[in-house]
């Protein structure tokens, strides 16, 4: 029935790593993910895992270490945040295109400048087109559960996977959590048995080779197919995880959406705050609901279009800005999803919110719903590109 505990999000992820006992960790510390390799290195030092911990001099090298190890046939992991993730970017593309299912824990944090250590999604969203699978967690439980599912998903489609949570908001907050017994974790995650790897002595191979124009595009098409295939894998693994824990996961979570006329789309810890806001509004007979995006890569376009098709107005909430004078990534991809599905009725607006740790309150979310109500009443969408609770 699981183990009742209380852990911070970082502790929970480090504990999941310990239960899995991967082969190699290459890591370089950066706030607010520092605790993950810190806790994990203690497990290594105490002999609780037999992982090779490789302390490197930069995030670029941390990811390079993972790439080398995973290509050799090992399970490799790392953790990072913010500019650390930026510094890995070059190697993130290499990991994805070499089809190496590395697992990277990200405690999301803002990017400079102004210099800021607090949460938003600028770091993760900045690398959204590197070819990595990306799952986001609402709380410590989901950060842990997503991590336990990560390797099953990544290894099934040969793509690396990022397990993202909100820096400080969940990474440093102690909350109740239900842990899975280690034997069950080991059985669920299974052994890593890649078909091809560098240390397979009877099958010499090359990794990271040059591809001329004659081959490059086919390699990319295969990579795109792996991302498409990942959608079913994420659902299948999430359902299987549900069988052993009672906590089933899909690409999105819908909350009070059955009869919702106004909805928000959101990622991460503010989804929990939004649930409280929705409960209060539902008590006032307002038909409001929530779509929480768990998988941002692959993007659940059909599922989102299906969930939104009957709403009158929605707000896509972006905890980062694309600085395109237009909108953030969730809004852009949601609108594309609706257009592709031939759904034109819902009126949609975009909020950039919670940058650099700007606190997101129940009242903040209720303000968004109040704006949506106005749009429904007047039929006028107004400015679609908005900043939430900002001094101007």
């Amino acid at each position, binding site marked *: 029935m699981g183990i009742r505990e209380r852990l911070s999000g970082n502790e929970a992820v480090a504990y999941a790593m310990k239960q899995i006992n991967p082969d190699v960790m290459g890591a370089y510390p950066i706030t607010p993910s520092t605790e993950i390799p810190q806790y994990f290195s203690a497990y290594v030092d105490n002999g609780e895992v037999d992982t090779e911990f490789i302390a490197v001099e930069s995030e670029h090298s941390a990811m390079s270490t993972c790439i080398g190890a995973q290509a050799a046939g090992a399970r490799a992991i790392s953790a990072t945040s913010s500019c650390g993730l930026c510094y890995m970017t070059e190697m993130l593309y290499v990991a994805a295109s070499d089809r190496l299912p590395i697992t990277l824990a990200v405690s999301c944090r803002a990017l400079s400048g102004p210099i800021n*250590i607090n949460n938003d999604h600028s770091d993760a969203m900045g690398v959204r087109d590197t070819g990595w699978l990306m799952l986001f967690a609402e709380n410590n439980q989901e950060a842990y559960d997503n991590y336990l599912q990560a390797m099953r998903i990544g290894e099934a489609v040969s793509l690396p996977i990022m397990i993202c949570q909100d820096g*400080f*908001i969940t990474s440093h*907050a*102690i909350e*109740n959590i239900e842990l899975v017994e280690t034997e069950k974790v080991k059985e669920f995650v299974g052994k890593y048995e890649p078909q091809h790897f560098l240390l397979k002595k009877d099958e010499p191979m090359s990794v990271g080779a040059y591809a001329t124009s004659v081959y490059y595009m086919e390699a990319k098409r295969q990579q795109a197919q792996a991302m498409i295939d990942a959608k079913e894998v994420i659902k299948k693994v999430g359902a299987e995880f549900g069988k052993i824990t009672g906590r089933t996961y899909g690409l999105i979570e819908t909350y009070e959406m059955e009869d919702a006329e106004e909805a928000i789309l959101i990622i991460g810890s503010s989804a929990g705050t939004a649930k409280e806001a929705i409960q209060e509004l539902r008590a006032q007979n307002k038909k409001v609901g929530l779509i929480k995006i768990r998988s941002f890569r692959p993007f659940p376009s059909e599922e989102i279009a299906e969930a939104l098709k009957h709403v009158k107005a929605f707000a896509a909430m972006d905890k980062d800005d694309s600085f395109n004078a237009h909108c953030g990534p969730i809004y852009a991809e949601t609108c594309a999803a609706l257009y592709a599905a031939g759904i034109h009725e819902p009126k949609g607006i975009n909020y950039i919110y919670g940058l650099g740790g700007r*606190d997101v*309150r129940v009242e903040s979310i209720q303000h968004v719903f109040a704006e949506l109500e106005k749009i429904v009443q007047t039929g006028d969408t107004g400015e679609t590109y908005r900043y939430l609770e900002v001094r101007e």
Partner: protein
Amino acid sequence: MKDIVEIRWHGRGGQGAKTASLLLADAAFNTGKYVQGFPEYGPERMGAPITAYNRISSERITVHSNIYEPDYVVVVDETLLSAVNVTAGLKKGGAIVINSHKTPEEVRPLLKGYEGKVCTIDAGKISEEELGKNFPNTPMLAAIVKVSGVVEEQEFIKDMEGSFQHKFASKPQMIDGNMRALKRSMKEVQIG
């Protein structure tokens, strides 16, 4: 309304307000509650004002924001009273617990007209006498438990004894001192 108690801690970097909030979360967790314990992070430096928070409930907590209308406020460093608006949003039906050698009557005028309960505890003195050092955490934790009743007292004492035995396994002399500080604080906290 949901059954939830919200507590805000004010301290200075390095004094352990964050640790105290995590200890309170632990104590409430051990009695079967749902808990949150989290600090508000800024540029970390010794001596700067810091804030930490607790939510304690018998139901699962989904909100992930700071606390603006706390039921209780704990002030680990008295000098913050002139630097930070510690009673901001504090509910009238709640209480503020301040680490001070003064009486509640002496402190109340500094609290911008707060009408609820004002409690003081000389955590510094208790800590100096029982632990030989100024570690106000344990007495402050005991005082807020006493004043708020978020954890049943006897259960709390028993639970803390277990925690200290675990935490100070290599420094057993610290166990008795901390337990004395804890019990003294629960007795000596002045409620005004």
